[in-house]
């Protein structure tokens, strides 16, 4: 007898429908899975057989053929275990189900019949909703993740028998329900991450606030122990709250790589990704034979923190250029071309010299040539995409021992969100939503300069030997500073503050 079960598989962050056909025929005992399965799918035979027998059913010997259609797409992962097992039970007439067509079914089986969670449930739930399925049957631990999609009943199952009883109408399962508002209510991230913990460094905090408000990329230069990493880790706490569409996009990526916690429904806190500097190009932007998202995509709608920037491989840094420019990564492999979203805020940190201290350069302990070599690892085009350069000085003893605490992240975030709101209104109807994304034309419209400002810029360009690329950056940052001050026009003091954020242009390439 033949059974046909609806299931799905994920390529990139897109789900596509897979029909699992099971034919339990007579003849010499034989069990084969066709339809371009990978190793995990092939091994499904042994899991399915054990799970069926240990759930109190009979595994019928005979000619059992499983086909995964469409046959020309590669199927990966263990998520076909449950549909195959249910198909086998139906084909061997141990289960009385009128039709499998109403439900999309996914799940990995343990040998005792328990259903284990699988990756990439959220994209599948979206696809099921679009294809107007009556419901989605998933492992119980994945149910909240799928239930985020509104208007699609999601049934979480514990084990094979649970699923079989539900399909044959012997048990009822309450559809999993999540309240989206509740998910967003407690999204402060780890409680111990607050700017109030960082002593001193007021100028750096100000720069980070500007960067967060305008979506600017930022680089911090300072000796070891000055608190660069500590500051960077707290940036998500001052970024504007995630909106639902943003959270869904980020969750899809995290779901595909299996980063979601057990039973977690939605990523509501902005991600903070901090890859080690030994990371490969593919680890950073994504790829490999079955293309999977890299760190830039995992940081989508959040922060990508690159500590010790000059220590990264030059090739790894250069591949960052496309995502920084377009907010997405396109990966081409023999299997096909995939696009992953990758809109993140780049936060970099580096030491001023290879020894870590700028004083070593001044007193000759580190040669100027060595320092130059160290700094020149960061290419001009990459630096071109970083709007704000800020120097982080080592803390003085009195600051360190003092009891004064800084401003809390909650207060800073309020100002940041107000600044973003002004930008949202300014760019309404356009494809951009923050100052960092402005092109030359939009800069001209949004940043009208008076005589006084023009003079200051002319002086700065000549005297500090700033390049043309620095010019646009200064205007964008000045716009953000004015937005934070709730000023409609950019004034001289806004511009002056923006100009001092270009220190690296002079030091390295000036």
């Amino acid at each position, binding site marked *: 007898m033949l059974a046909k079960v609806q299931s799905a598989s994920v390529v990139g962050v897109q789900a596509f429908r897979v029909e699992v056909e099971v034919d339990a025929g*007579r*003849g*010499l*005992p*034989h*069990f*084969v899975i066709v339809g371009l399965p990978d190793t995990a799918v092939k091994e499904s035979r042994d899991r399915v057989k054990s799970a069926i027998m240990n759930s109190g059913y009979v595994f*019928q*010997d*005979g000619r059992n053929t499983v086909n995964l259609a469409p046959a020309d797409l590669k199927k990966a992962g263990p998520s076909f275990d449950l549909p195959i097992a249910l198909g086998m039970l139906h084909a061997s007439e141990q289960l009385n189900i009128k039709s499998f067509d109403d439900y999309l079914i996914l799940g990995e089986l343990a040998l005792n019949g328990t259903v284990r969670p699988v990756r990439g449930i959220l994209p599948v739930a979206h696809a099921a909703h679009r294809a107007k399925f009556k419901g989605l049957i998933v492992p119980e631990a994945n149910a909240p993740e799928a239930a985020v999609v509104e208007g699609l009943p999601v049934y979480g199952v514990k084990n094979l028998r649970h699923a079989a009883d539900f399909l044959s109408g012997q048990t009822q399962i309450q559809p999993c329900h999540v309240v989206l508002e509740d998910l967003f209510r407690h999204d402060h991230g780890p409680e111990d991450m607050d700017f109030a913990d960082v002593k001193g460094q007021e100028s750096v905090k100000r720069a980070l606030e500007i960067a967060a408000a305008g979506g600017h990329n930022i680089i911090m230069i300072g000796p070891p122990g000055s608190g660069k990493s500590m500051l960077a880790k707290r940036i998500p706490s001052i970024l504007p709250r995630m909106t639902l569409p943003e959270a869904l996009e980020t969750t899809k990526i995290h779901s595909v790589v299996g980063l979601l916690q057990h039973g977690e429904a939605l990523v509501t806190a902005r991600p903070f990704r901090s890859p080690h500097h030994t990371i490969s190009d593919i680890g950073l932007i994504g790829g490999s034979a079955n293309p999977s998202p890299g760190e830039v995509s995992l940081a989508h709608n959040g922060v990508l923190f690159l500590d010790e920037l000059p220590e990264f491989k030059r090739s790894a840094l250069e591949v960052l250029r496309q995502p920084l420019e377009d907010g997405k990564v396109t990966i081409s492999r023999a299997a096909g071309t995939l696009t992953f979203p990758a809109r993140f805020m780049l936060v970099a940190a580096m030491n001023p010299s290879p020894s870590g201290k700028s004083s070593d350069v001044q007193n000759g302990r580190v040669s100027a040539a060595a320092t130059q070599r160290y700094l020149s690892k960061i290419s001009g085009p990459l630096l071109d995409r970083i709007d704000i350069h800020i120097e982080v000085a080592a803390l003085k003893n009195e600051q360190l021992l003092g009891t004064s605490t800084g401003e809390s992240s909650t207060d800073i975030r309020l100002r940041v969100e107000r600044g973003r709101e002004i930008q949202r209104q300014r760019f309404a109807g356009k494809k951009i939503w923050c100052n960092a994304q402005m092109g030359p034309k939009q800069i001209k419209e949004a940043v009208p300069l008076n005589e006084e400002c023009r003079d200051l810029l002319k002086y700065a360009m000549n005297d500090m030997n700033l390049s043309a690329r620095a010019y646009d950056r200064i205007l964008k940052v000045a716009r953000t500073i004015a937005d934070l001050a709730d000023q409609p026009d950019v004034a001289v003091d806004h511009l002056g503050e923006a100009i001092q954020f270009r220190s690296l242009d002079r030091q390295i390439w000036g």
Partner: protein
Amino acid sequence: MRNYVSRWGEIDIVCRHANTLVFVEVKARSEASWEKPAEAVTKSKQRRIIRTAYAYLQELEDSAEIPARFDVVEVYLQENQAPRCELITSAFALPDERV
């Protein structure tokens, strides 16, 4: 039926269990042996049995419609006692590649 022989090899017992055709391989070992009898039914031995089973089925009519399985009977020989038998049902199946 005992000991079906074809040009491919031989099968110790061919019998029926309910409506399933069962091909049985009998392996004997002394009780003192450290090796289990079933372990002696190697992949190549299985292949030979499967080929022989095909030959047997060909002699029947409607052979594709008959459910079938392969069993192994382990026989432990003991001195001065009756031998002890153990039946392993569905001991093996057709491999992935064609035989």
